[in-house]
Structures are given as C-alpha cells and as structure tokens.
C-alpha cells in the first residue's frame, strides 16, 4: 500500500457508503462526496450521479426546483449534507452559531426529511463543530452515517445515537467530539484505499472531477 491523500481515503469511505444506491445527487461545493460518487460509479455503471451545479452537461432542465421535485418523488436515494454545527441527535445547523452568521439552510430542511439515505459529511472534526446541541436546527432527520476528517460514525435508529465505527488514524476521538456516542471496546482503523481504488481515483475519476472542481483536482492530484 503506497501513500494516499486524506481526500482519497474519505472518497473511498463515501464510495463504500454508496453500496446499493441507485442515484446520488450532490449539492454545492462538495468535491469529496462527488469524488466518492464518481468512484462508485466507475465500478457500478448503473449508478447515477447528478451534480447540481455541473457547469457543462448539467443534468437538470427544469431549473433549480427539479432536484427537489426528484427528491420528493423518491427518485434520488442518497444526498450529502454538512453543517457549521452537527449534534449527537443528527441535527445540523447552517444558520448561526457563537454570534457568527453562516450562509443559510439551502435545501437541507427538505432534503434531510425526504431522501432515504443522507450522509452527513464535514472535514473538520472538533468539539466546535460536533456539539451536544446545535444552536439552530436547520434540518433534522435520520442520517445513514456521519463522516469526518478523523472518523466514521453509523446511526443507530433504535437508540437515536451515533456509534463510532472506525477512526482514520489511531487517536482519541472522544476528546475531540462534543457529543456523546456509543463505541465498541476496540475501535478499528478505517480501511485504507486499495491499489485498485487509488488507480481509479487518480485516473478516470480525477479527470471527471477536474472539470467542476479545478482547484480541488489541482490540490489533490496536481491536475492543471
């Protein structure tokens, strides 16, 4: 196993979370979820990815409401949401925290409740972001998972709590997490990218991603 970028590891985790999905939509400014989705598509050609803000050959022809209409009908089964704050009940906050104003809720209040599989994704893993209770509930729902730059959590429907599944490196996650969660006695390391995954990421996936996220593709893969 050679060296890999953290972004590549996160994209591989996202691709594994997409197992069994038929159609994922990707909202604004989400290069890592988009990378994971295109990696999954490479191995599962029947899987559809719709990038909301794709510059060329955008999949939508009915304006920006079409994404929400598709989701309302169940034609999109996977969506990604982030948050300035995320709490242990799965609620996200995109509006305000600690006297600071954030951009706003976008479509989250709707998408979280109508899309079957919502993956929460935020690269920063800190007690500032992962809080006991969000200051403002932009959206609430039952997530499929929470992926951060340091760890992967699953959601336990019966307990209404997160469960730590793995950490990307060996480190004390509880000290860096503001909410309480369940964890196994021994916490495994997140499975690293395989050689096959890395060659797909650095080949066809990187090419597709560079069209819509040029800065990201340049930073991770040196594509100009």
């Amino acid at each position: 196993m050679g060296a890999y970028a953290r972004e590549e590891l996160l994209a591989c985790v996202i691709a594994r979370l997409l197992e069994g999905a038929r159609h994922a939509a990707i909202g604004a400014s989400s290069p890592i979820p988009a990378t994971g989705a295109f990696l999954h598509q490479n191995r599962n050609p029947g899987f559809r990815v719709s990038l909301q803000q794709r510059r060329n050959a955008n999949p939508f022809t009915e304006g920006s409401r079409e994404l929400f209409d598709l989701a309302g009908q169940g034609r999109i089964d996977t969506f990604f949401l982030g948050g300035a704050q995320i709490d242990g009940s799965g609620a996200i906050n995109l509006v305000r925290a600690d006297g600071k104003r954030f951009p706003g809720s976008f479509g989250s209040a709707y998408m979280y409740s109508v899309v079957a599989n919502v993956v929460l994704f935020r690269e920063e893993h800190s007690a500032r972001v992962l809080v006991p209770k969000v200051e403002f509930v932009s959206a609430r729902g039952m997530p499929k998972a929470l992926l951060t730059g340091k760890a992967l959590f699953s959601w336990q429907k019966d307990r209404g709590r997160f469960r730590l599944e793995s950490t990307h490196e060996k480190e004390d996650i509880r000290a860096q997490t503001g909410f309480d969660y369940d964890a196994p006695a021994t916490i495994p390391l997140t499975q690293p990218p395989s050689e096959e995954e890395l060659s797909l990421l650095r080949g066809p996936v990187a090419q597709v991603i560079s069209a819509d996220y040029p800065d990201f593709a340049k930073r991770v893969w040196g594509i100009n």
Partner: protein
Amino acid sequence: MNAEALAARIPDGALVALPPDYSLPAMEAVRCLIRRKSRRLRLLGVPVLGLCADLLIGAGCVAEVETSAVSLGEAGLAPRFTEAVERGEIKVRDATCPAVHSALQAAEKGVAYMPLRGVIGSDLVQARSDWKIVDGVLNIPALRPDVALFHARWADEAGNVWVGRRRELATVAHAAMETLVTYDELKPGDMLEDEILAPGVISSLYVGGTAHAPKGAWPLGLPGVYGADDTHLSQYARAAKTREGFQRYLDEWVLTPGKSFSPA
C-alpha cells in the same frame, strides 16, 4: 432602454427577486442600482443569493433579505452579508430552497398556498410565522415579488427573452408583478416562431422591460457564451472582507463610469 433606465424602474423599498450566481444574474443592472443609490430594497433569493446581494448589501441598498442562503460558492462566504447580519444592519427571513420555489409556484397558479413535504422539525418553521402546518403538512403562502430582475442571453424585437434551461426564471417571471431583463444580444423577429428556441423563451406577456447590456452578467457567467471570471471573483471575496476594501472595490469597479462591465 439601457440598463440605467431599467434599474430606474425599481423603486426604493421594492421586493426584488434575484437569481443565484449560476442562474443568469443581472450584474450590470445591480451596479446601476448601486450608482443610483437605491435604498431599503428587500431581496428575495430564488432560491439562494450570491454576488448580487453581497454588493447591494455592502453598498447600503438593502433593508431585508429573504433567502435559503447567501454565499459566493467556491469563493467562500459572502462577507458583506455576513457582517451586516452580525451587526444587525439587515433583517433576514431564512427559508429553504424548495419553499421559495413553492411560494413562487403558488403565485404563478394564483392559489393562496402550496403544500410542501418535509421541513417540519426544522427551526425555520418556528421562525416563519407565515408558514403554517395544516394536518401535518407545511403550507407555504404564495409570494408575489414587486420585481423579478435577471439577465438573458437573447431578447427579440417582440419583447420576448430567452433563458434556456433556467426555468426558475420563468416561474419567478410568472409570479412577479413586473419582470425586468437585461440581455447580451438582440435577435431580430420573434423567437416564439422558432420551435427550437421557443421552449426556452419567456413570452413578452410577462416581461415589463428589457435593456441591452453586453456582458451584463460579468463577472459571473452566461452559460454557453462566457464563463465566470474566477480571478475577479476571488479578488472581490478578498477585498470585501473589510469595509474599506469593499469601498475600494466599489470605487474601482462599480462607481467609475465606463469601467464596470468592460473587463480586460
């Protein structure tokens, strides 16, 4: 009519519906609003806002914003919006994207409200006294903006405008009391006679005024014609982090006659 005259049709205090950065923003008309010192505008994001709103807010033209978000996309947070909200200088009515679409769709159908799935459980519902839960479903009241303002690739001699796949602009034009459109190019004749163009047309029935503004979306893009000027946008995002930097940007790119829409 030029963009200056078109902007003069928007009275102070009007509820003005604007598209996001990726959906045909009328940037030249926005610069005209700033030059004519518009005041107390209420902006509606269809369904979110970007550079248009940040410029208008920074220039003191705005009292209130109703939107699902304000952001400069890849260039980051909208700095003038953020500071104005944190200092309590403008009021925000937070929404969520499909609620904005539903409110405009209700208006275009002439019905009082439109039901919307989901959303219940969000604090937005408590914050919006105009949104009602009836039999477990959220009802969004119809919203009729005073003005819808955007940029089109083409207008024609019959007063129609072409927006292609940006159908949310057709919806907001149907819903608004008046629709004002700047355009890059004038097409001779009537686009409704062309079966290929017609599906992307908003008919003159809805359009109150058009104005020729070449490169009128700059520094944002006009899909298929010119891309967004990413260098200029990140320059703006950096400059607008402070009031002084924003004022220097306004002086150079908005208030200096002749310079505004003529990028190098």
